[in-house]
């Protein structure tokens, strides 16, 4: 499991320059099989969370703990997808909720009895939602990724709003009335009751965690591939990357489309769990909350964004009295973060990729040094 192999045990941002190795370096110097071995208990613990219901972590009686965990897992999936766009390729996408919405509507339109379209089994809507959102990612990204970075932010913001407005205006999408009874995966328990019900958070949580781990694996491999190297080159200096022969627009489009597909997938999962889709859940604040998860955790760092997603989704569920103020809190958090820790809780590392790790080890005789720099730190292009 590549993904979690990057998991740093310490959030220390300074690389160990002195003799003492930091936890992160020590972790990185372990061979991969050992890392996997150490991760197995962590994964088992993550799976066991809704059953264990740990006293400190659990939510108040009013909030269903497995459902809160499902929410966190869903946010983690979204954050991983958005991280591909924002963290890896350095494209600020403020309309990510648009892809999420499209995924939800694909699931709703093809499974809900309220929809006039032909119906397919729910599980088929998951890959279909990804294909459809990829198409929309291509449609949006194709023309706009040629734009300057900050124009992209506003165009994607507009895209998110258009999706929401169309869901309201366009008749067959049913606006606020929405679609009831969105499908769910098949399966019944011993009593003959369906497993995946809207109230059974545990089953949905396990499903989403499994999908998230699979996606982490895929994205992690992508990151170490030629595509991932191109993304990092673009993020760090687009002009230099272009000069070095990186087809910047093509790779930006890749990032955008892959991010969109993950957004669509999480949207379809969300629609299945809630069982109801209407136009109310896809507003810009939600999009900014997704962004907050990525930036808070550490954009460009997969484990970081999962942590950020957990904080962003879990804190309002755990401390219900804070829920009303979540946008205020995360808004202020973004400002403060940009001032004092722009790389987020766990920063991205510009590490030697692919076989670089082994090469470095052989060359220097000690694990590579990692910097906690990310696209959010370093020399500004514009001194302002």
């Amino acid at each position: 499991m590549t993904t979690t192999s990057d998991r740093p045990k310490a959030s220390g941002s300074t690389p160990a320059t002195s003799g003492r190795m930091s936890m992160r370096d020590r972790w990185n110097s372990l061979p991969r099989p050992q890392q996997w071995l150490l991760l197995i208990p962590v994964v088992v613990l993550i799976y066991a969370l809704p059953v264990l219901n740990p006293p400190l972590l659990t939510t108040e009686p009013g909030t269903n703990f497995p459902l809160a965990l499902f929410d966190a897992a869903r946010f983690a999936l979204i954050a991983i997808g958005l991280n591909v766009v924002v963290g890896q390729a350095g494209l600020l996408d403020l309309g990510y909720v648009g892809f999420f919405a499209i995924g939800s509507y694909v699931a709703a339109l093809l499974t809900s009895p309220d929809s006039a379209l032909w119906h397919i089994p729910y599980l088929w809507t998951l890959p279909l939602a990804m294909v459809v959102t990829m198409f929309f990612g291509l449609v949006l990204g194709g023309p706009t990724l040629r734009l300057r970075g900050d124009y992209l932010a506003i165009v994607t913001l507009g895209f998110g709003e258009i999706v929401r407005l169309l869901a309201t205006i366009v008749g067959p999408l049913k606006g606020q009335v929405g679609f009831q009874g969105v499908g769910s995966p098949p399966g019944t328990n011993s009593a003959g009751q369906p497993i995946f019900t809207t109230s059974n958070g545990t089953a949905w949580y396990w499903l989403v965690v499994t999908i998230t781990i699979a996606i982490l694996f895929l994205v992690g491999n992508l990151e170490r591939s030629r595509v991932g190297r191109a993304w990092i080159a673009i993020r760090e200096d687009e002009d230099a990357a272009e000069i070095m022969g990186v087809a910047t627009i093509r790779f930006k489009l890749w990032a955008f489309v892959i991010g969109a597909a993950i957004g669509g997938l999480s949207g379809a999962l969300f629609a299945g769990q809630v069982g109801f889709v209407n136009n109310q859940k896809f507003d810009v604040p939600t999009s900014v909350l997704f962004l907050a998860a990525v930036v808070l955790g550490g954009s460009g760092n997969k484990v970081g964004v999962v942590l950020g997603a957990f904080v962003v989704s879990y804190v309002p569920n755990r401390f219900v009295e804070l829920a009303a103020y979540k946008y205020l809190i995360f808004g202020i958090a973004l400002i403060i973060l940009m001032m004092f820790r722009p790389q987020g809780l766990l920063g991205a590392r510009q590490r030697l990729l692919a076989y670089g790790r082994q090469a470095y080890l052989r060359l220097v005789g000690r694990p590579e040094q990692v910097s906690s720099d990310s696209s959010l730190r370093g020399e500004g292009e514009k001194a302002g």
Partner: protein
Amino acid sequence: MPVISTILLAQGHDLLAQGPDWIKFDVGAFLSQFWSDTIDGLAYGAIYALVAMGYTMVYGVLQLINFAHSEVFIVGAYAVFFTLSALGFGTSAPNLGIAALVGDLVLAMLVAMLVSGLVAVLLERVAYRPLRRRNAPRLAFLITAIGASFAIQYAIFAWRGPNPEPAIIMFRPQPVFDIGGVIITSQQLVIFLAAIVLMIVTDQFVNRTRLGRGLRAVAQDPDTATLMGVNKERVIVLTFLIGGVLAGAAALFYMMRVPAGAQFNGGFILGIKAFAAAVLGGIGNIRGALLGGLLLGVIGNYGATLFGNGQWIDVVAFVVLVAILMVRPTGILGESLGRARV
């Protein structure tokens, strides 16, 4: 428009009955309402243009999309609401003489300008200046801007709740001109003229005064301007102040047009559209903001009439933004706060 569609329905019932009811392609309504849509669009577009000035000037000087500018604007709308409420305005038009009415409105505008200007300057101090000190990259500025936008929005939310404030009716729009059946109301006239005057004043200020010259110099080349003795920090504060003051003025006209406009997230969509207006005209270009605002106001109205639903205004505005960025990313008049006439 309802009349027109009824006639069309009566004539071609079969044809229209088959089409969906959520979108029309109502050329008849579009033609018959062309002039009234144009005039109304110009008045509304003048509000966009005033807000767009704030975006365009900050972008011209700092190359920053100040997402929080829409909140600077909505804070102004709240200032208008509270001032006019204190002056006894309410859900019905007050019985005031023209002099007293104008006095009250000007007072409300000044308060809104002051409040919005202060918020804009405060925002610069608290959120953006520390980042400039640290030489942060652009992505950090953008994320801070979004964070600030949300912090202000939801601070208002925590204070005033989710619902819009009660409507404030300033005066009843009276028809002033009637040109061949096209009626121009007093409200449209006031908004349009006042906004144009404010923008001309700003344009002259930037182009003809000493401070304005400093502003253009910093927009053109901050380092050289600093070497030539321009106080860059002061220019940046000035830029935010002017943008905020204009947004405060826009807030009064917006409340005139949308009486229950003071809502915590009421500025957000208008802000995006104002930014679209700035890009349309050429961001960083003051006259471009005016042109873009007016165009966007008019185009939005045409779209709403053509497609038969007021909600299409926003969709049309965003599509226009994307289309303009694709075809001519520098906008109609080009990007040039610095290169404005010397």
